[in-house]
């Protein structure tokens, strides 16, 4: 017990120490000397923090736009992906082939997918804000659905040896096999998939904003400010993007512990 406590402290303290060291090197410009750069491209932490403090309303507005796209895309994508995997598991004959095709979506870069989806949804609404949000959400949902369907399909079909045979020997019907065996078996796989999906949803939301018609979002602000040589402001938004990524991952880990805690080990 004591040892685990010590190792736990170590696992928090070491990264924290590293972060403090990095910030120290950064603020004192030793980092700039090491990287051969200057405070224009890599502004000092205090300068970046000042911008964060000065613009709470604007940052909140952009963060809200990014979050709404990210979370709705994540939710829709996960439900869709899980639905696909259930269908694939129920109809294994075409299921594995279908998933192979869906897996191909994984290879399509977001930068290629985003403009295509934005062009396809031009007629979705007369309101540019609405159709931009729809386009961005579709991109996030598509990418999440792909990862979820592949992950969950594994959970639904990769059963304990003989577990399915055992249930069949009890004369269990397909529905019972699904509810009692496949569904519970897929839960840890869902979380494994989510570990990939949550960061994917953040990144795809940020990048899709680059191409959207409506100018809003953390990702868009990063890109626009870099193009305009406003690196300090771009860094401020990069900090926000990092915080969003870390926070959403932390929430996922917490949810995993609460839901999987005793029954499933990952």
């Amino acid at each position, binding site marked *: 017990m004591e040892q685990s406590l010590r190792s736990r402290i170590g696992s928090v303290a070491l990264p924290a120490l590293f972060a403090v060291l990095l910030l120290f090197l950064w603020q004192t410009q030793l980092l700039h000397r090491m990287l051969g750069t200057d405070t*224009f491209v890599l502004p000092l932490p205090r300068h970046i923090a000042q911008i964060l403090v000065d613009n709470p309303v604007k940052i909140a507005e952009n963060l809200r736009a990014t979050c709404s796209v990210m979370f709705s895309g994540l939710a829709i994508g996960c439900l869709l992906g899980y639905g696909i995997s259930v269908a694939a598991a129920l109809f294994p*004959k*075409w299921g594995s082939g279908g998933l192979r095709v869906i897996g*191909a979506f994984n290879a399509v870069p977001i930068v290629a997918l985003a403009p295509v989806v934005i062009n396809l949804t*031009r007629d979705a609404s007369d309101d540019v804000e609405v159709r931009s949000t729809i386009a961005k959400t579709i991109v996030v949902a598509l990418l999440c659905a792909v990862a979820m369907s592949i992950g969950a399909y594994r959970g639904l079909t990769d059963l304990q040896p003989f577990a399915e045979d055992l249930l069949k020997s009890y004369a269990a019907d397909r529905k019972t096999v699904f509810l009692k065996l496949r569904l519970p078996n897929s839960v840890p796989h869902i979380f494994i998939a989510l570990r990939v999906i949550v960061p994917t949803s953040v990144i795809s939301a940020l990048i899709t904003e680059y191409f959207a018609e409506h*100018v809003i979002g953390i990702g868009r602000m990063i890109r626009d*400010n870099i*193009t*305009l040589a406003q690196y300090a402001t771009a860094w*401020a938004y990069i900090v926000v993007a990092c915080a969003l990524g870390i926070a959403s991952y932390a929430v996922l880990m917490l949810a995993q512990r609460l839901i999987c805690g005793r029954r499933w080990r990952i």
Partner: protein
Amino acid sequence: MKKKIGLVCALVMMAALLLASCGGGGSSAETEIGSAEVPEAAGGSSGAGAEGAYFSADATAEEVLTAAATEGKVGNWGLGNEYELLALLEKYGLPDKFVSQAFDMDGFDEDSVLLASAMTYNELGLVVNSYEGGYGYGDTVKWIDMNDEGVAMLEDNLFTTREFAEANPETVKAFIYASMKGWEYAAANPEEAAEIVFEYGSSVSPEHQAYMAGEVAKLVDASVPVGTMDEAAMQQTLDLAKQYIKLDDSAAAEALQALTLDDLRDTSYWEEATASADGSFSPEKTDVKIQLKWLPQAQFMGYYVAQDKGYYEEVGLNVEIIPGGGDIGETTAVKNGTVDFGVTWVSNLISANAAGTDLLEVAQVYQKSGLVMVYKIG
């Protein structure tokens, strides 16, 4: 057996996907060709009645702007290209909202943007003309000119860093001398200039390149010496920049308000370069690079002509022209020393200097704004 069926399913679905994507591509190409040939038909089909689907031919700039802004269909590319539009919107008391416009004119063609930003030498030509890549609207479109509206800001210039200029004054003068010679020739012979640019890796068709060269020649303005840095036009650009460039970085915003023309440009290099009769300089650095703001096209024809005609060689320079495109920040490239010279819009130079660069304009190639807001009539 199971595996085989799975594989077959995969193949069938793949084929379906391919077909679907081909179908989409095909149909979009069709509409493009259709609208290029008969623009009236496109107008008729989108509105309830064929008459009055778009703006009236004698509508004033204010009427057009107000109507398009009310519908939320005013377009611009953003990324520092929007300040003139913002000034125009404020001039007529309209909200400072615009739609992010793509780098093609499909949004304008499909009416998702009713009042679109266009450069006279590029997008406007694509909208009006019916050569390859054009939309062929001919005289069914009109446009609002920033110069007429009094909200013009200076665009393509030639800049370096103050540090580089002070360390290599002869190189700077030699480069200005040869470049302006190239621009002078190009402005006088736009057709030949277009052909030269096309040979150097053009991003557009030869017809469009020729059109562009003609329009750029107008912006260069043969009535003044090429590269003239007009005080009044520069001051108007700086004043508008201070009003419409919004920076979240309070330190940079403060620096922006404190900027004067002397922080942005130095006319002495250009004056000494143009005063030279024979162009004999002794450049400190002979291998130099220039970063363009965009893809190779007649927008930058002066530099390509100078290269092609050997003007750079004559002054003892070995010049590499580096095309831009997309997210390449020419201000950052020059500031970092990746390149020695750059072409940018004065407003972009202003915001970079506000953020802490020490960029220095050494010549102003375009004397007028090339930005217009284009709309359909009828």
